[in-house]
């Protein structure tokens, strides 16, 4: 299954022969990148973020959304640099606040698809409060949280998702804090769509991201990734390719996980990939817009009574 997914990403012979300058026109992925933005990205070579960006673009493309209809909002960190490369309405905000900015934007433009792109530190440490409240409101925002268990941009400090015992520059003797289970947190707070996959399972991510964006309420997609230049180096986890492979070896589809006995499930240490929540809940801006319609109507009548209309 996994090999099959990886294979799908190899360029076909035909694609490989397209001259570099024509790539933008030839590839549906590249058509969503900004032509006037300088590439390559700021990300280290071998980083999983490029793969995840590809998945996001394919998800948007799959849904047939107009570029003007889509807004990408990001906080601060390696992951938060993603929107600048993509040809949508892009808002690169302050650390941890992507969901709060996105909330204002979604309220102003309920018709737009608003996607908040965050890392684990951005979304769950400094932005943890906004994360649970956006989920509680079930506001129509898709949160894409790229979880690499570390603060990469600042050089490898432990984050709210660093596993116990793993090292970081600020946990030189091993991390003593238990990590947040991101998806469980979102489900408990009220998110109406929650799914998890990894940077290795790119096409699976495409699918979950399309479903998340199509969902009217608050969606969370946790994309498990890795940071080979900080976390991997400090914890001696090998090269980018080796870390990428470990995402494959150390993850299990939810369908397989569900077949395990309760004891086996309890003992499972692998990343469970799949759709973890799908629930119909009223979406915030739709409810509020109904309230506005009702109040504008009553005001209309009041103004008629006082002779203003």
């Amino acid at each position, binding site marked *: 299954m996994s090999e099959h997914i990886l294979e799908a990403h190899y360029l076909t012979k035909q694609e490989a022969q397209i001259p570099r300058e024509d790539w933008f026109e030839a590839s549906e992925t590249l058509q969503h990148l900004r032509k006037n933005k300088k590439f390559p990205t700021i990300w280290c070579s071998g980083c999983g973020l490029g793969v995840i960006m590809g998945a996001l673009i394919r998800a948007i493309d799959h849904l047939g959304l107009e570029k003007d209809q889509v807004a990408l909002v990001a906080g601060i960190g390696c992951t938060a640099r993603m929107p600048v490369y993509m*040809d949508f309405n892009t808002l690169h905000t302050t650390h941890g*606040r992507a969901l709060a900015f996105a909330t*204002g934007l979604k309220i*102003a433009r309920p018709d737009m698809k608003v996607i908040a792109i965050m890392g684990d530190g951005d979304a769950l440490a400094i932005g943890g409060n*906004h994360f649970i409240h956006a989920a509680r409101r079930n506001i129509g925002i898709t949160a894409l949280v790229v979880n690499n268990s570390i603060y990469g941009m600042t050089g490898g400090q432990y984050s709210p998702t660093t596993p116990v015992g793993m090292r970081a520059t600020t946990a030189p003797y091993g991390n003593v804090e238990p990590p947040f289970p991101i998806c469980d947190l979102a489900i408990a707070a009220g998110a109406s769509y929650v799914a998890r996959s990894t940077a290795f399972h790119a096409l699976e991510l495409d699918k979950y991201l399309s479903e998340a964006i199509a969902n009217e309420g608050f969606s969370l997609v946790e994309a498990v990734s890795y940071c080979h230049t900080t976390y991997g180096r400090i914890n001696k986890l090998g090269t980018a390719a080796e870390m990428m492979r470990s995402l494959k070896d150390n993850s299990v589809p939810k369908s397989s996980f569900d077949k395990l006995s309760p004891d086996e499930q309890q003992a499972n240490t692998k990343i469970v990939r799949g759709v973890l929540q799908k629930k119909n809940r009223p979406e915030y801006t739709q409810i509020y817009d109904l309230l506005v319609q009702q109040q504008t109507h009553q*005001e209309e009548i009041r103004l008629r009574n006082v002779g203003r209309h």
Partner: protein
Amino acid sequence: MACPMNCQVEEDPAYNKEVSLSVKLMQGNEAIALGAIAAGCRFYAGYPITPSTEVAEVMARELPKVGGKFIQMEDEIASMAAIIGGRVGGLKSMTATSGPGFSLMQENLGYAAMAEIPCVVVNVQRLGPSTGQPTAASQGDVMQARWGTHGDHPIIALSPISVAQSFDLTVKAFNLSEKYRTPVILLTDEIIGHMREPIELPDFRTVEKYEQAVTEPPETYKPYSNQTDVPPMAAFGRGYRYHITGLFHDEVGFPTQRLDEVEPWLERVNGKFERNTDDILLYQADYQPGARKAVLSYGASARTARHAVKQLRARGEKVNLFTAYTIWPFPEKAVEELADLVEQIIIAEMNLGQLALEVERVAGRRKVKRVTRANGEMITPDMVVAAAEA
């Protein structure tokens, strides 16, 4: 028109048409909320805090009636972020808070200054520092309004002295924020915010509203063009796909560290008010020929100052009265002119000397006498009179 919620509101023939017109008695905070709606504000995000909460309460009640949106966010950081997001989405936006909340808003306030997103932040000042005295008045956030966020940045702060002016300056705050693409702080205080005065509300349809007009087509649009003082801002989702960031950016909004791109931006953004001071600086100069002393004040203390000057003049003394409505940028030319006219400027403010630092910078320290109070009580006219007589 049928209501989608199936509400049963009927026209009431007995409704008194005279009631809604004419003069009303209301608080400064209520006047701010109505001024915002009159100015075209259609999005409010806030967090409850004394003594500003009435602004949120009126907005929650009134905004939906005019098709606007209200949200109570999880904290003040989120409130500030949300109003920037709302304005990026095309709605004129406002938040209101007081000391502790204003401190929390500082980072995103700097973002709005950096990314040039128009928005209005009301700070109903209370006594600080820290939790201080939530129900006591103060003017202790004057310097925070100017320098609270990190880094050099442009900012406008207006300070009303009455309920009627709370309405007018809120409208002005919105128009300035739109015209100069900047956050504008309405720096009011607990006294003006909670005081009730009569106010004659205008017909909101006739209130002047500044609207951004983007004329460039998307292909050539530069959201941060340095060719003009204030390039117009396109809202998201209208064909202008561009990048907004808090990083130093080039003319199209992409992050840059190149000096040839950073420096023209710095020059334009930090100079955009200087080149338009006539429009931005609001103050009242009530001068008497031959006066050797002047009283300068703003906000609630300006009411005390007026009273004191009235008393002094009644005794036959000649005194100049300067009331600043625009606090930031500081009206330095006007104060310089005042300093040339008189031997002494008495500044009255409810803090330990904040705007006094600016007056001293412009007029010279020896020419300035401070009347300050930061214990939650108002400055009395006697204190000002005593200072003038000393």
